[in-house]
């Protein structure tokens, strides 16, 4: 991964309202210990990441949005590759020990960056 690698985030349909991407799409699920799962855009395209998430992992996504690794570090977060055996392009944005309120502010910053870039692959 390089500073300009795009980290691809799958967005659940419930996190987009009237076409507006909400920060909940970039808010870490507590069970994941502050780690937000993303795809490494250097290893997989937005379309293939979408297909993997929907067809292989059988989860719901209305589209793929992305942030650059450099942008992630500029908002004060760390991201790194986290390859899994059957999921080599897996990476994470680590919210570490941020409190819920801190997570919300960080998620809003990531949302703004991702929304500016636009949906990289939308649900057909």
């Amino acid at each position: 991964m390089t500073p300009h690698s795009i980290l691809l985030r799958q967005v659940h349909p419930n996190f987009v309202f009237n076409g507006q991407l909400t920060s909940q799409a970039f808010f870490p699920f507590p069970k994941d210990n502050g780690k937000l799962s993303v795809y490494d855009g250097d290893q997989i395209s937005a379309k293939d990441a979408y297909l993997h998430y929907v067809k292989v992992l059988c989860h719901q996504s209305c589209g793929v949005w992305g942030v650059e690794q450099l942008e992630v570090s500029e908002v004060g977060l760390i991201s790194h590759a986290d390859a899994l055996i059957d999921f080599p392009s897996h990476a994470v944005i680590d919210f570490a020990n941020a409190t819920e309120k801190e997570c919300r502010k960080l998620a809003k910053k990531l949302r703004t960056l991702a929304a500016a870039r636009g949906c990289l692959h939308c649900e057909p």
Partner: protein
Amino acid sequence: MKTQFIQPRFDGERFAEHTLPIEIARDLAAYETLVVELAKHLYLQEHQDKQRVPKGFAADFHLHLENIEPGSTKPMLALVVTGLLALVSSTSTYFERARDLVSECIAAEGSSLPSAFPKELLFHFNQMGRSLRFGESMHLPRAEMSDAVLTPERRKKLVLACDLVYEREVELMGAIEEADWGKSSFRLRLMDGNQTTVPMPDSFHHQARQYGGRNRHLVVVRGVATFDSWDRLQKVIGVESLEIQHNAELAIRFDKLAELKDGWYEGAGLAPPSEALTIIAEKFIAHYPESAPLPSIVPTQEGNLLAEWNALGDPSVDIHLSDLNACFHAFGEDAPDVEQDFMLSSETQWNDFFAFLNQNIKPRLV
């Protein structure tokens, strides 16, 4: 004098319990009217020297709902004749012939209607069968033949065989844009952008004045409208009820949130607890400040809510449903962030919360 006349059978989800929804009575009443009108027509066809049917011909003919048989929703309609009609047995055969002709008309293939059925009576199918919903049907038994089956689609075809539009029941939602007090009607802007004129009773004038032009509050119109063969709305011709839906967009959103089930997010997201969600929904729908922009409201994976605005400072509120605690945050513009927590347990606390939102949710600077 009472004899069994016909035993229609109703099929569809609503009839699975072998009960007959009250509104179906209107279809049966419309069926009775059609049989009477058709019987009159048959009589006059055979008595061309007469201008009118005999006295009491129609007035003494009545269909009564005798019982609903178990095993299906099959109301037995009994023919009850009184007065002179009871004394002239030959007359009642016109009603039986009319019954058979109505069934033949419904069962006719394509547009080849029976020649004995006058086209000008087809408009009665605007009423008969109007209560049937998609997937429902009314079966009229025929001697030694398969049932005549009236479905919403068949009803539409029968009416359109004699007219350019047909009637069906509608529920429309939209904003009141303009009222015409003289004609006692208002222009309804529908959710899809189309518009139509809706007649209103005088009792609705006050609400039309109050909510006209306020596009956040929509009116739900239940009634009857005409549609063309492409099912495009032509005109609202009758209104059964008019109901204001405050903050309709929020109401629709909260309805969607209430449908969530545990596991909605990657098999693990929690659904918002319904009791707390109802409290939040009622407050937002009834009291959300008119001048503040509406938020996007989304669920969180832990079963809470996030309200977020596309406004100055990217304001958001995390609402924890377990303790009705709300955490507001907005980025400051060359100033510290705005952060405030609220408890939402009392009227006063809700009033303070909405007053705060009204003051702090500001449109983006252009």
